[in-house]
């Protein structure tokens, strides 16, 4: 019998192959003929790009038959060679390395804030299910789901431009203070937070409600604990357990860069890198960002599963049915 941990780790192998294959298929399917580039609006010299493109295709095995090409491409990728950007000739891995920290600078605070806001709100909701506050918070979270992020971002830009908050980029020209950076991050982080808040709040509430119906809660009440203590000491820890797994799920979406938020606020993160790559048909970069996003999700799921196993002894001691 294999341990569940090993099984889980082995289970990532097909997923890894699948993710890399999608990225490979994407670039392979991209039209490489000169027409596609000449129709580009004359932004770059067509011939040079076509030469670059052919060189790239040969080097990355895009010309070979599907499976051998994939194998050849995969060995290159595993060794860290993602090719060079068509735009400025710099290695894709370097570009990714520059963009990733900026995206993390946005997404980590947003995720943290999401948790910090969702936990008290979820508790308030679950304290009196069906009460005014609960209904208000639940419908609030529900409405947040339906808000288009580009709208929220643009509304913030429009309002903030009157209030003197910076709306573009990461820093004011020539200023390198923390408060300046903070002011630049405020709006984009707010934009990213509302999405994760909606997800987290909804799940925390339904998880808390489920916990409150369990037998151990009845026992806790029967031994005379106050409702607040029941909620905080008994229901919350168990609910937080399931929230751990949500971390792994919310994080990659944020880490791959919110394309729209980064575009509107002009932040040079992963989202902007992807968008620019699509815009300029910079295939190596596009392939790199898709690959990183997919792998981040895979790792996020893996980490949250492992965290979950570490937090819940029932799982690590029991094998999968």
């Amino acid at each position, binding site marked *: 019998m294999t341990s*569940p941990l090993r099984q*889980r780790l082995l289970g990532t192998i097909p997923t890894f192959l699948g993710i890399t294959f999608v990225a490979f298929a994407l670039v392979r399917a991209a039209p490489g003929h000169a027409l596609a580039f000449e129709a580009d609006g004359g932004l770059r010299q067509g011939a040079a790009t076509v030469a670059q493109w052919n060189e790239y295709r040969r080097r990355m095995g895009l010309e070979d038959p599907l499976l051998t090409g994939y194998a050849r491409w995969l060995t290159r990728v595993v060794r860290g060679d993602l090719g060079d950007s068509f735009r400025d000739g710099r290695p894709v891995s370097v570009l990714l390395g520059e963009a990733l920290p900026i995206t993390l600078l946005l997404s980590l605070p947003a995720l943290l804030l999401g948790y910090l806001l969702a936990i008290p709100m979820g508790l308030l909701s679950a304290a009196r299910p069906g009460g005014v506050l609960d209904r208000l918070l639940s419908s609030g979270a529900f409405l947040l789901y339906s808000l288009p992020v580009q*709208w929220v971002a643009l509304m913030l830009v429009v309002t903030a431009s009157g209030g003197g908050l910076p709306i573009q980029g990461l820093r004011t020209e020539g200023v390198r203070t923390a408060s300046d950076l903070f002011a630049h991050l405020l709006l984009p982080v707010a934009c990213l937070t509302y999405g994760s808040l*909606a*997800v987290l709040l909804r799940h925390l509430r339904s998880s808390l409600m489920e916990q409150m119906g369990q037998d151990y809660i009845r026992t806790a009440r029967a031994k005379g604990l106050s409702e607040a203590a029941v909620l905080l000491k008994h229901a919350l820890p168990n609910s937080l357990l399931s929230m751990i797994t949500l971390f792994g799920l919310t994080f990659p979406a944020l880490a791959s860069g919110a*394309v729209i938020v980064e575009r509107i606020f002009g932040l040079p993160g992963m989202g902007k890198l992807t968008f620019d790559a699509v*815009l300029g*048909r910079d295939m190596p970069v596009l392939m790199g960002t898709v690959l990183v996003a997919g792998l981040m999700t895979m790792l996020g799921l893996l980490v949250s599963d492992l965290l979950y196993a570490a937090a819940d002894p029932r799982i690590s001691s029991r094998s999968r*049915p």
Partner: protein
Amino acid sequence: MREVWHRFAARRRNLLGLGLALLLALLAVFADFLASDRPIVLWRAGTLYLIPNLVDYRSLRGFTARDLGPADRALWPPLRHGPYTIPPLSTLQGPLPQPPGAGHPLGTDNAGRDTLARLIHGARTSLGIGVAAAAAQVLIGLVLGVLAGYLGGWVDRVVSRAAEVLLSFPLLLLLLAAQGILERTTLLSTMAVIALTRWADTSRLVRAEALRVREMPYVEASRALGSSRLRTLLVHVLPNSLSPALVAATLGVGSAILLETALSFLGFGAPEPTASWGLLMAHGFQDALDPNARLLVILPGLAIFLAVSAFNVIGEGLRDALDPRGQGAVERSAFITSAQNRALSPMPRPGGCGPTPAV
């Protein structure tokens, strides 16, 4: 079915959502009768033209309201602007985009096109793509999910792996990349990429349901009575696995609208100059700091919000109505409930059976 409807109608919120969705659907269907630069009925030079706003009469090419003679009669739509009418430069007063005024109740965009007309026709684009993508996505997901759940074995393994790989990519990024490698994006390609990337959610839910249904006594009875596997699948398993697909379809419309408008906003969805809510916002974004362009940002956003929340409300209401006790049939929260018994295993997305956030 009646029972389901009663449970659905018992909540005012659900009816409100349904009403709103129907209203938007009417708007989408009759957009040409609400906003068009051609009359609904035209009597001109002794000829009667029926619905020239829909039919492109050869003799009416280039016809505008100015060409109307004194003896001609026309029945106009309430708004006399089409979504694509760009006024001739000579008639323009003041800079573009124009603020709301007599001719244009909600102003114009920076090409002089009427905002209200584009909003109305945008309902057609967004709802059309939303419904078509959701239908296609659910059809794929339903077929694959039922097959995976009922047949098990390698079919199940292949489908589940493929779904898992698709779910491993952040949606918008994958869509953007897929649209980006196309030589030019069209409404059809937008719909197709949404459907092809989103079926995994549905297939996962349907598979779980088919797994449950497969163990039901009536399936066993059907097999015992000598029905073939195919017959059992079509007559018993498929109809009984429909409810999650129905919910996924409704919620799918909402998320497809969000995705379409997001893609269009980025310039990789509906091609110019389609009247799409996402494109309208992109035009507003071009001059975000011009107060005259504000409406171009605010109103399409509100329209998207209304449409998406209408379908989300219906979807959630439908889920509760199909499964009042919140067990079996449609997982209440695919994620939380399974988290308790789930040993280490590939994980469903949190939004599995809920609306998908737009991040």
